[in-house]
């Protein structure tokens, strides 16, 4: 096997140009500043984003939700996979925004807009944006061994409220361990890219199941219960007071806004460029946790004409058996129908039963809009 040696720069990545033939364009390739990197290893080393919908592509539930003021109005409200936890720390509108970092290729960001301020949070108040990662997708981190791997989070963020913000990782699957790192928003109203590396945790393996592996908590504000200790910059048993030490209070003014997009979590201590995926790829990943769609069917003969069924398979196997809510629907035929209950639901499909009134209902068609929720 022959070998071709190329001289790289003294630091950083190196770009090489293969000159095109007559009438053809040049080709370029770039090697990172990593020892023993080969082109074949680059091809095989496709960046893997452990977060889902980090580019804020998919919004199955809604593109805006106002009046997020408590644990009765928070939850998964807009962008897929991103949960909001607001324990009485201001009132917020969360929405899809087209304000994105220029020239980076993102279409949307997640926006938090304070509509009622809380300048003096109670001790137990907190406001957090969360993504919970499924445990079985984290096995290759080798947590619980001496070979536990570091992970690096990168994201774009913008706010008028400068200062220190905290990202807190919690492992709920084994023994509630956590680690926190801070980042600083330096310039008001300016998109900034942040890169934060977290050490691997050599204590306790991540359970190899479909439960919660690591929760990524992006703190926006917190009461003294979460800020009165010493920030847990190494993995430790969960200590509430050490979770968000130094966190600014984004809720202290109705002028405050916070935007985020381009979130990527990778194995190792280096952040690479955001891995853009086709919309349908991100949608399918999201639909493992939440599906908003339609089922349809037609009434068939039944002994007493009073129970018929319609059902569909989910587009992907859901994480677990989902909860089902019926949003709306219509039944077209001779009338007398009521979609009345979920009769069967599994990780793969759902069936809804409805009642008819007499033989004239046979052949009537119906559909229902459903939400299926198997979020972590």
């Amino acid at each position, binding site marked *: 096997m022959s070998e071709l040696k190329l001289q790289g720069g003294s630091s950083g990545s190196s770009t090489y140009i293969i000159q095109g033939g007559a009438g053809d364009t040049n080709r370029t390739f770039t090697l990172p500043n990593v020892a023993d990197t080969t082109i074949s290893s680059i091809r095989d080393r496709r960046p893997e984003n452990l977060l889902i919908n980090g580019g804020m592509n998919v919004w199955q539930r809604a593109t805006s939700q106002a009046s997020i003021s408590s644990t009765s109005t928070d*939850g998964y409200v807009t962008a897929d996979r991103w949960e909001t936890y607001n324990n009485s720390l201001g009132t917020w509108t969360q929405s899809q925004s087209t304000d994105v970092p220029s020239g980076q290729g993102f279409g949307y960001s997640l926006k938090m807009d304070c509509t009622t301020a809380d300048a003096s949070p109670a001790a137990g108040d907190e406001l957090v944006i969360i993504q919970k990662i499924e445990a079985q997708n984290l096995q290759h981190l080798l947590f619980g061994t001496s070979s536990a791997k570091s992970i690096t989070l990168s994201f774009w963020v913008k706010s008028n409220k400068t200062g220190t913000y905290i990202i807190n990782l919690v492992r709920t699957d084994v023994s509630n361990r956590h680690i926190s790192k801070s980042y600083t928003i330096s310039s008001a109203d300016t998109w900034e890219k942040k890169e934060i590396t977290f050490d691997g945790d050599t204590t306790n393996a991540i359970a190899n199941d*479909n*439960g919660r592996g690591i929760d990524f908590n992006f703190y926006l504000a917190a009461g003294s219960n979460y800020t009165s200790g010493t920030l847990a910059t190494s993995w430790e048993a969960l200590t509430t007071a050490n979770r968000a030490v130094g966190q600014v209070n984004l809720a202290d003014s109705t002028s405050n806004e916070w935007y985020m997009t381009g979130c990527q979590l990778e194995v190792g201590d280096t952040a690479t460029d955001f891995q853009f995926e086709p919309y349908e790829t991100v949608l399918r990943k999201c639909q493992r946790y939440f599906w908003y769609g339609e089922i349809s069917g037609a009434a068939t003969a039944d002994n007493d004409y009073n129970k018929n069924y319609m059902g569909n398979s989910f587009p992907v196997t859901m994480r677990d058996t989902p*909860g*089902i809510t019926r949003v709306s629907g219509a039944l077209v035929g001779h009338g007398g129908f009521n979609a009345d209950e979920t*009769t069967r639901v599994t990780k793969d499909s759902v069936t809804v039963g409805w009642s008819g009134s007499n033989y004239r209902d046979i052949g009537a068609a119906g559909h229902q809009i459903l939400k299926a929720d198997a979020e972590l």
Partner: protein
Amino acid sequence: MEITNARYVITDPSENVANLIEATIDGEVWDIPLTVGNRFYDEIMRQVDAGTLTIAEAE
């Protein structure tokens, strides 16, 4: 998560065993599988254990 009006539901009368919980969660009516790991079911059971929620028997 605000949960009210929780009741067991029997969807197959021939079995006569409840296999869902119907509950109003944050203003929406949900059918919840009796599955540990479903976040709604886990929260319902947490509130039942805490004595703040009661699940009505199936009708």
